[in-house]
Every structure is written in C-alpha cells, then in structure tokens.
C-alpha cells in the first residue's frame, strides 16, 4: 500500500491504495469517479481513456502511483458545466446511443483538437481508432469532431474580439 495524492480535474485527491492499482480502479472504486469506464482491461477498447497532461491514456493500463505530479483530466472535469466544444458538438450531433464508450470518445476527440484544430477524416480516423463503439456511432463521431472544430474556432474568434 502507498499513500499519495493525485491531481485530478484540478483537485488534489489523497489516496491510500495498493502500489500497483491501475488508475481506472482508483478512480472508480476509491474516488467514486465512475464516468471513466471499464471495457477490456488490456488497453484495446479505449472506454477508460483519461487525459494525462493533455494526452489520451488508457487508465486500465497505467498505475495510479506513477501519475503523481501529473495533471489528470477525466470526463467529469473536461469542463465545469458540460460546455466544452466537443461536449456541445456531441450533443448537437446526438452521437451517443448506449453511451458507455462516450467518455473515452469525447476525451480522445478533445485531445485531437488541441493538436489539430481542423482535422480531416483521415486525421480523425487515425486519432480515434483506439476507442471502440459497440453501437456503431462512428459516422456521427466524424461529423461531431468537425462541428466541434467549428465551435472551437468560433470561440477563439470571439475571444480574440473581446
């Protein structure tokens, strides 16, 4: 067991957990942050994706203790009120069906747009290929990322004016 703190969504969370517990289970079973979801446990489905210093990481495959001093963002902390451009675009294009994988999709898309403000289909497919959707919402994910890119551009244009 080890005691340490993690910076999750801008808040320091003290933990007292086994040394090798993956971040996913620390989030779900110790901190009740259940928006990050288990799908495969071997890092191939992407349901458990979180952002570590802005980059997508599969939380089922990384030890919580290894993330001390890093900035961790989960779906609960992507925006204070659910108005991140990706969240708005996902709602407006009505991407979710069952919704189980969508936290991983949204966070992966948000990280993509930080790197590439205007991704084409090939860039979207490349960045999003690690996150499975059993319901088949892929065609809408492509549309929603393009819409989110527009919302983001509008936001920065509005920011530049003010």
């Amino acid at each position, binding site marked *: 067991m080890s005691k340490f703190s993690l910076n999750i969504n801008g808040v320091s969370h003290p933990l007292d957990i086994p040394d090798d517990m993956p971040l996913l289970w620390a989030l779900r079973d110790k901190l009740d942050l259940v928006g990050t979801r288990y799908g495969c446990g071997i890092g191939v489905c992407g349901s458990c994706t979180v952002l570590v210093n802005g980059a997508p990481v599969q939380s089922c495959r990384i030890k919580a203790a290894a993330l001390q001093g890093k900035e961790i963002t989960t779906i609960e902390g992507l925006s204070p009120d659910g108005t991140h451009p990706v969240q708005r675009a996902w*709602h407006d294009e009505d991407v979710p069906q069952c919704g189980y994988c969508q936290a991983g999709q949204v966070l992966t898309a948000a990280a993509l747009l930080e790197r590439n403000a205007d991704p084409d289909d090939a860039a979207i497919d*490349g960045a999003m290929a690690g996150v499975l959707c*059993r*319901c088949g919402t892929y065609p809408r994910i492509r549309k929603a990322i393009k819409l989110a890119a527009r919302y983001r551009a509008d936001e920065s244009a509005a920011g530049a004016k003010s």
Partner: protein
Amino acid sequence: MKRATNRTSPGFGPGMNRRSFLQVSLLASGALLIGVGRCVESTASDSGDQTWAPNLYVRIGPDGQVTIVSKNPEAGQGVKTAFPMVVAECLDVDWRDVRVEQAPLDDRYGRQVVGGSRGTPDGWDDLRIAGAGARHLLIAAAAARWGVPTGECSTASGSVIHESSGQSATYASLLEAAAGLPAPAVSELRLKSRPEEFTLLGRFVPGVDNPRILTGQPLFGCDVRLEGMLYAVFEKCPAFGGKVRSANVEAIRKLPGVTHAFVVEGTTNLAGLMPGVAIVADSWWQANEARKQLKVDWAATHADSSADYERQAEILRTQPGATLRADGDVESALAAARQVVEASYYYPFVAHANLEPQNCTALLHESGRLELWAPSQNPKGGRQLIAETLGIPEDRIHVNLARIGGGFGRRLVNDFMVEAAWIAREVRRPVQLQWTREDDLGHDFYRPAAWHHFRAGIGADGRMSAFDHHFVTFGRDGRPVSGADLSPGHYPAGLVPNFRLRQSLIETHVPTGPWRSPGHSAYCWAYQSFFDEVALAAGRDPLEFRLDLLSRSYGEPPLDLARTAGTLRVAAEKAGWGRSLPAGRGLGLAFHFDHGGFVSHVAEVVADGRQVRVEKVWSGIDIGPVINLSGARNQVEGCVVDALSTAQLEITFAEGAAQQGNFDSYGLLRIPQAPEVECHFIQSDHPPSGLGEPPIAPATPAIANAIFAATGTRIRALPFRRSGISV
C-alpha cells in the same frame, strides 16, 4: 405479417387495443396524474373482479413539468427521448417540458422487456392516448371555467386558448379542475397518426440523457455505489456447465483486500446460476488480482468443439433431414429447370460483446428483502430466476433498472443477476458483481452458427421455378436451441412455386440466445447472397430480379411485397444503381423484413485486390412514421456498422470452451472501417414499428454482394477472412 399489411384509419391503429382506458386523479402535490391501462381479470378467477393494470402514467405538475413514468429501461435504442416526444406532440407542450422517470420492476406494469423492437409499437397508442386524453380534459376544464364550448378552444405550448375572447390559461392552472372531470373514453379522442399532422415528431432531437452521458454522471449498472459496498468477481468453468471439484479458497481469502472467497455449487441451468467460485474484496481490482491466484479443479461435462461441429455438419448435409415445408414438387421442378444453381453458405457463432460487461449490484436488507440494481433487458425474468434459485419470494425482491450499456439481446438472460444475488446473500453486505471482458465473451449466449445448402431451378422465363433449402443448425433434445430456428414461412417460401425446407440438427452444449434481430441477422445474408448468384446465373440484374421476385406470390405472401419493393426502389435510386463504375468498385443490394420494419440497403465497395473498403451505404426504410429522426438514423447507422463488424468476427470452441477472450481476438470494427450511411425513410402512415433490429439483417448481404461486384469473390463463408477478404 398481416399486421404489416393493414392500413391505418385516422385516429385508430389496427392493433389498437380499444380496451385501453384512462384513469385520472389529483395527487397531494397538486399534480394531475393520467394513467393509461386496461382492466384485467383478477387472479381469483371466480370473483369476477377486475384489476386496473396501468401501462404507463403521465404526471403534469403544478410547475408545468410533464413526467412519463416509463416501464422499460433505456439500452441506447432511444425510447427515453422518443416517448416524451409522442406525449408532447399529443398534449401540445414543449417537448423540453416532458421527461421520463424510470419505473422500477413492478408487476402492475405487465411486460417490462427491452427486446423485439417493440418499445415504439407497444407504446405508440398509450402515449398518444395519455397526451390526447390529458389535453382533452384540460380543454374541458378551461371551457367550463370560461363558459364557452370546448370546440372553440385550442391549445399551444402548454396553454388552453379561447381566441375570440382572448382568454388563455396555462395547463398548470387547470389541473385541479381537470381532475374533477370524468375521464374521456378513448374512443372520443382523436389521435394524430399521419406524418403530415405532426409538428414535433419526425424532427431531429438529441437524446435527453446526453448531458449526463457527456459529463460522466453515474448512469449504468456498474456506476452504482452504495455505502459499505464490496466488489465481486465470479469464476466459472471455461467449459460451459462444468462443476467445481475443489478450489484453493482458503489461500485466496488471505490475499490483500479479499474479504470473502467461496465455492458456489450452482445449478445445471445454463441460463441460471452456474457452478463457480466467488471472490469478494474492498475494490474490484483486488478481487480480480486475487482471482489470478485461484486454482480450481473443474469437472467438465462435455468437450464441444468447432472442429467436431464441422465434421458433423459435413455428414448431415448428405442426409435428408426433417422436412419442415414442401410446396409443389421441388425435385421435378429442378429436373425440368433450364438451369440449376447450387451453393452452400456458412456463418459462425458470434458474441454480443456489449461494451458494458455484465454486472449487477445486490443488497440483502436485514428485513430479508433483496434489492438489486440491474442492467437487464428482462428484469422480471431475472427476479423469477432469483426467486427459484435462492428461495426468496418474488414479492421480497425489488429490482431497480439501470441504463444498459448495450443490450443486443444478451441481457434478456439474467445469469449475472442471480450470481450477484447469491453472492450478496452470502456476504450480507452490498456487493457489486462485475464480470471481466473475458467472462463476458467466454460466457455469452451466442448467436448460433449454421450451414445453408441451397439449390435453385431457373425456368425458361428466367424466374426461380424451384427453391430447395437444407438448413443445418444446432439443437438439444431434438429441437433447435434458442436463436437457431428458422420459420418455415420465411421467404422465398411463397415467392417460388416449388419450395422445400429441410432441417438437420447438431447436438450442442453451448449456451445460445437471441442476438439482435435473432436469426434474421444471420440467415438473411445467406438468402440474399444466393439470390444474387441466381440472378447473375440467369443473366438478370440483381435489382430487377428481386423486384420481379416480389411481384407475385404463391398463396399467402411471406411479407408485404409492395412495402418491401418500395424500400428496394428507394435505396437503389438514391445509390444510383446501374451507374457505370471503374474496375475495383462495386454496388450490392439486399432487402429484408423483420420485427415490423422493411429495410433495403445498397452498399458501395472499393477493392484493392482482396482488401476492400465499404465506402457508403444507402438505406431505404419503411417503419411507418419516424418519431425521432435522430434516433431512427442512429439505429440504421448503428446496424450497418454492427453488420460490417460482425461479418468479420467469430467465436470458436475447443474443449467445451470459447477460444476468444477479449477484443484483441474478437476485434470489433473501428472508426477507420466505418462507412458513411445515408438514410431515406418512406414516411408511410402505417403504425410505427421499432428500428433497433430491422436494418441489420440486409446490411451484411448488401455489403457481401458489393464485394462480389468489386472483386469477383463470392463470400459463402463468414467471417469475411474465411473467404479471403479483409476490410
């Protein structure tokens, strides 16, 4: 089938239950409660008493908020958004003022099942009756208050309006007066039924749960967190049905975080509590870590294998099998045919692979009452199973319904519920049982494999004169297992003058069950691929051949020919069927009818050798009026992706166990392979049918036929790689 051919008269659907009636009351909160239901005979049969059996409740609050108490859970099929839209349309309120409250499992509600694409058709009448009935009462209350005829009053956005006097009153101000009026008879209500009457229905409306989904709020069964809750894993014999001889549970109990480890003797019901070992810990990860040290001596009861199934299938194909249907004289017609086309098709077992692995949370209260939180498509079945297995009366079991992280038919079986209940009773603490992905793929109720051996005779007129079909499927005790049967009435029965269907069964010990559009999603590919072979052998265009096939029937038609042909024409027209294509590019099409819905697809495929890419699919759909355009399109897009995904997957067995354990060996489709999908709805005024299932069956053959057109490779075995094709 007849249901699909009936026409709707304004106001009443043919399937509408005229025994439905309204019950109206005022709640202590000041809310108006409208119940729609039926009177059913009391269970004490000689009493002659009748009991009120509600199908749904709609509550209008003093704040103007309208709440539907919905009896069925949401699994991604969109009912939680579609249902409020129907009530809003008929009640005439802003749909944002209507929300859905999830009812727990309650006997008063009758059927509480997500399955068979029945949510929309079952809810259609009652939702409209509730909305129109409440509106009728509110208008009557306002008219009485103003002393004007009801016929002079109209409604808009939650208010009654009397235009000539300029008076208006919000619904919220009329609730008490409305509750004092007699409930209208359902026959007095005029229910909107035609697409041109709708103002809200048919629009693109995003899902009501999106804000919670997109901010990671607790929604699913595995998100339940209770005070003092422990986490459990349950290991079963990899070979289905195997029993525990012994297990090192004492050693397991000493491992970090572990609070309990014990053997569950279980039952012999493959769909119930199977034997296994439960490990319970402070966190799920610790329970699962401890499981890695678990050593169980299993007593397997069988050693089924795919290789053995294939050997048996090869023997059975040469035997006559049992004749399920014989029209005319197939052998004579084949002998007289100008040409005989013969081909065999095979599809494998597949898994449901819901992204949310099976889970259930259970708590045995000190009072002896058992409470569960279950992502179940069939919670009543789960409660019965628990009652039988644990000996707890059903009225002492309370089931809360969680949002379902993918259903597809898997959660019609409730093995995970009875496991959680058993473990919680042993542990006497709240427990969440969470399966691993390996548990999920290794203990599914698989869609069964089958072989289809076809022979078709082509007459001098180029039409099919004979169709002979030998179906080799799986059974137990002389009957097809769940999901392995085929209706003798299925087309092309009734479309060909000489028809024969024979069936042979391979004995299996593997658990099987319904998988999205059970049966159809598998065998439609075989039929519609073979139709292409026959059309091309006869020198006919696949579209023209099918439209001709749908132009006449021999006896009762097996499906509504006009509606089916309508979807085929729309899909073909939108796809530009017949346009010239460069080499390595091809179009393919297929039609189908199941679960009340008519769907045809045309797929366009581009090939680079044996590597293909499905670029686009055009869909023609007739499900009556579309309720939520977004939800409807979502189901079509999802079904096309699901079909392409599943056409590349298989579950195989060795030593009685599944050989695929996770998404590395059961690789669902990923975004780069997903095609664009363009939907075209034929907005007919038939009563609406569901759309969770109908689009999947014809998608696989449309794609496979396009692959043939692009590559010249006819896919006669799934997954695609068995035919040398990769996507």
